């Protein structure tokens, strides 16, 4: 079904003899918040890099926003937003200059940039700081700004790579409110995180172990299937057996 925001079929990437991503099959629906979990080195980043068109798959296929990641990488890139854990903002540019730059890169018209800038700044409470250098604003705001900028061109799906690491709990809560607001407008959100309490906020999650998806479903389904009380337990169980295998 091409109506899925992401549809991956047996997506695989090998580096030499090492299989980083091993035939993963999953989909993300429009407006869904999908948690992409796994230990470091489990293959999350490689999988995401393929989905955002930065890495060619070795085999398998995937569509993102209805476009084939192999043959239509250009269209894929226009329809996605991406925010890495490093926030991808220019510290020596002002808030306004960052927004304008990203708008220009994604071909957003000047008028739309102007109105959306107002919306963004009002939503995260940064109206007073449009002319301030990003370097000068607090980390929590930086992160919300980076997220808003990744949404400036109204993508069909936004990829968040550990967006909440190093942020205080209150800001994290505020950030999740932003994520829900975004999902409510129909934009899908694929998020990776190491905080398993955050995973509970996702509608569905997948847990990757050694390049393969070891568990997938709503947080409750995943817990029940593993016979565990918390996602922490599930995670430890899966990654330990994975390490033993």
């Amino acid at each position, binding site marked *: 079904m091409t109506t899925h925001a992401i549809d991956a079929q047996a997506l695989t990437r090998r580096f030499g003899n090492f299989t980083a991503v091993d035939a993963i099959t999953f989909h993300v629906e429009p407006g869904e918040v999908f948690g992409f979990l796994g230990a470091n080195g489990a293959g999350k980043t490689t999988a995401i890099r393929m989905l955002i068109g930065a890495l060619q798959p070795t085999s398998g296929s995937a569509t993102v926003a209805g476009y084939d990641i192999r043959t239509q990488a250009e269209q894929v*890139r226009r329809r996605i937003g991406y925010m890495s854990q490093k*926030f991808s903002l220019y510290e*020596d*540019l002002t808030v306004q*200059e960052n927004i304008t730059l990203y708008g*220009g890169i994604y071909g957003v018209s000047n008028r739309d940039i102007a109105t959306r800038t107002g919306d963004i700044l009002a939503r995260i409470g940064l109206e007073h700081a449009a002319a301030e250098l990003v370097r000068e604003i607090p980390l929590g705001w930086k992160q919300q700004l980076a997220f808003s900028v990744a949404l400036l061109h109204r993508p069909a799906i936004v990829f968040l790579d550990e967006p909440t690491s190093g942020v205080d709990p209150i800001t994290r809560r505020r950030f999740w409110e932003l994520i829900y607001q975004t999902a409510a407008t129909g934009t899908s959100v694929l998020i990776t995180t190491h905080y398993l309490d955050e995973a509970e906020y996702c509608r569905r999650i997948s847990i990757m172990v050694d390049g393969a998806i070891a568990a997938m479903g709503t947080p409750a389904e995943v817990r029940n299937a593993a016979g565990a009380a918390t996602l922490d337990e599930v995670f430890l169980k899966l990654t330990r057996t994975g390490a033993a295998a």
Partner: protein
Amino acid sequence: MRAFLGFVRKETLHLLRDRQTLAILILLPVVQVLIFGFAVRTDVQDIAIAIVDPTPDVATQELRGRIAASDRFHLVRVGSSTKELELEFRRGSIRQALVLPRDVERRLGRGDSLPVQLLTDGSDPNTGGIMQGYATAIVQRWYRDAVPAAGGLRIEAETRMRYNPTLESAHLFVPGLIAYVLTIVSAMMTAISITREKETGTMEMLLVSPIRPTAVVAGKVMPYIVLGFVSVLLVLVAARTVFGVPLRGSFVLLLAECGLYIVTALALGVVISTAVPNQRTAMLAALAGLLLPTLILSGFIFPLDSLPRPLQWLSHVVPARWFLTIVRGIMLKGAGLATLWQETLILVGMTLLFLGRGSRGLAIRLG
């Protein structure tokens, strides 16, 4: 196109907001011209010289007078024995000694050969050679004038130094300095600014965006092209006003060749940036891999002829070598493209090679 212009604007803002770096980049050309012009001179002045003259007479008096009158030399003393010389050389109170034989006047009168010993402090071979040349010239001219022209034909060579008649080292180093400054401004800064984006994670975002990697790089280098031209002009103006270095050829051709070399340097910067992980490594790579060859293997500081044979071969792959030949040709000899087309073509070829290599490196990163 709008994305590209936005990118140029962003890169210009980076450059303008980093005041310290910008100040260094603007001051660098001027300071370098002054340092090289005043301190690193290869022409020698005020050579402390001692003359050993066991039997002073009219002829030796004449020679002494000529040496004392030359502003190249500073006559420390005239003695009658060579005993003290060794000590004086070691102390550094003299750098040259001229030892004359006995009875100079009488030998000259008979037309005998005149055994003269010239001792030179050779601890710096370059200046040693130059000092020797100056002293020999004075002695020979004195000898010619002193020996009566009786009997037979005498062949006399009138020597002239073309293009740089007073052998000013300033005229020679300015072209090299342009290459040196452009290596820093264009190559190193490009490499640093691209690797900085790798480090801060913004490059990742750019590679995920619809903007093409070549557009990213083109946007990044634009301000450095402008800065490169500014540096060239600063070097030229400083060299002209302070040292009177001439520009005999076409100014437009000179700027065009400098523009070519700016692109060469930028391309090298891109090649470096695709090969190294961070700013620090980029800087080291640019210094060791680009600046050192530009200084040593281009003919800037050491004449290419004086390099060992393998290094002379190696110098052929150093772009600065060709650029130096071109700029010296234009500035000092007034040469045009008719004589410099080969060097220009080589430089164009190298530039295309580096550009190809650089853009392939970018494409590989996209995997």
